[in-house]
């Protein structure tokens, strides 16, 4: 029996559909995330993975069901304001996340919102940039960064707030191998829980412990993420996710 106070995110029978008779995206979804858990979430395009993350952050209202974060039920905008101090969401497109003219200002934005003084915010931001090997980037203009640099900078903007849970929405899309490696090493050095939505099995197997699939509006536990890998040999079903019951060949 799992101790309740170890549950960070707990969803019970959550439903979501777009208003005015729109498509049903989540249907009686049940989900638990525990302290220290590192979870990969896979699923088809349009299966509701991003919607799921946005519901956790309170960006979308649920149609039915209960969402509990850190033991408390969250429902109103006021409840979610507290959630957002503890959970960080990395958006799929870095251009959506970085809106300030310079990197330093963008990283400091969240801290200033939390009520830190400018001096304190500056110091913490510089420290975070240094941890991500982005020293010297503080005065760079955000829209002039490369795709990989933008991604790392937006990761810094989330990590600087010292979240207890990190949600990453397709963090490796469009990135080169070197940047992916940097993200992998950053994630492996974090001791917080996170959920990664991704289509890249290799990336997930190196950053997560467990894998879930989103299907028909529900989240199903698949098992250990070490079973996920891209096939370097090829056979007919090599591109489809599947299990090797006898372990890797």
């Amino acid at each position, binding site marked *: 029996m799992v101790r309740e106070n170890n549950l960070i995110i707990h969803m019970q029978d959550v439903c979501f559909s777009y208003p005015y008779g729109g498509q049903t995206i989540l249907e009686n979804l049940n989900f638990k995330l525990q302290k220290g858990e590192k979870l990969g979430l896979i699923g088809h395009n349009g299966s509701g993975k991003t919607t799921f993350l*946005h519901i956790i*952050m309170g*960006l979308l209202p649920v149609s039915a069901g209960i969402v509990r974060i850190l033991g408390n039920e969250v429902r109103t905008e006021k409840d979610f*304001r507290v959630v*957002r*101090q503890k959970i*960080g*969401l990395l*958006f799929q*497109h870095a*251009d*959506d*996340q970085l*809106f*300030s*003219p*310079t990197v*330093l*200002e963008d990283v*400091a*934005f*969240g801290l*200033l*919102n*939390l009520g830190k003084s*400018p001096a304190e*915010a*500056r110091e913490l931001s510089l420290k975070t940039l240094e941890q991500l090997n982005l020293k010297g980037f503080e005065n760079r*203009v*955000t*829209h002039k960064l490369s795709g990989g640099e933008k991604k790392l900078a937006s990761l810094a*903007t*989330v990590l600087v*707030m010292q979240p207890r849970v990190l949600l990453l929405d397709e963090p490796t899309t469009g990135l080169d191998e070197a940047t992916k490696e940097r993200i992998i090493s950053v994630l492996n050095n974090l001791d917080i829980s996170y959920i990664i939505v991704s289509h890249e099995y290799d990336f997930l197997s190196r950053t997560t412990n467990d894998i879930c699939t989103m299907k028909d509006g529900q989240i199903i536990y698949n098992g250990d993420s070490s079973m996920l890998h891209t096939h370097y040999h090829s056979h007919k079903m090599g591109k489809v996710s599947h299990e090797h019951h006898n372990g890797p060949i």
Partner: protein
Amino acid sequence: MITEPFINENSLIHRLDPRVRLVFATLYSFAVAVLNQFPALAWALFLSFLLVLLARLNFREVGRRLAMLNTLLLFFWVALPLTFEGEPIFSIGPISATREGVLLSAQITLKSNAILLAFIALVATSPLATLGHAMNRLCVPEKIVHLLLLTYRYVFVIEQEYQRLIRAAKIRGFCPKTDIHTYRTYAYLIGMLFVRASARAERVHQAMVCRGFKGKFYCLSEFSLTRLDVICSAFMVAAIIGLEMLEWFVKIT
């Protein structure tokens, strides 16, 4: 798109506090705008030029901007002498040009060039981001400052999206003609651009909300006045007073 060709020098002007530059550029513009006498106007143009020299700007770039302004002013030179009432200098058929019209055109030309040069030297020499913060510190309403900064940030993204759409149209053989297909395509492009810009704005707002945004922006940078700022402010105040005195006491009739 927006380039900032004047920000990367390291001159006396660039070292001044952006707030000082902003305040004096504004005061100076008003001071020059109320001048009417030619000696004062000539001095104003000279002072502005001096500022450009002090800022060690690229003359070609400055020239390009002046050319744009003066093209516009050409229309004044055509229209004003012909329409302004006064003593005629010459006439072509029934239309005659007046002395007053010519003088007015000359005044407008001198004023606008002086103001533009001063703005290039004082304001265009700091990055827009810094300028935004300087405005913030000078108690310009926050909404205006952030409208400016966010526009500056996303105008590039929107331009990229526009280029992407245009490319998508081009690779499928679109070439603009004067027909309904072209107009419809452009209408779709612009419509799509609005849709995407609005969707983007939504996502940016969500990202901000996720980081605790509650409708208020906080400013990170702090400015401080140095001795250089004080000395330069004194000179600039003296220059403005000097110009106004010239206006009052040296008159050519």
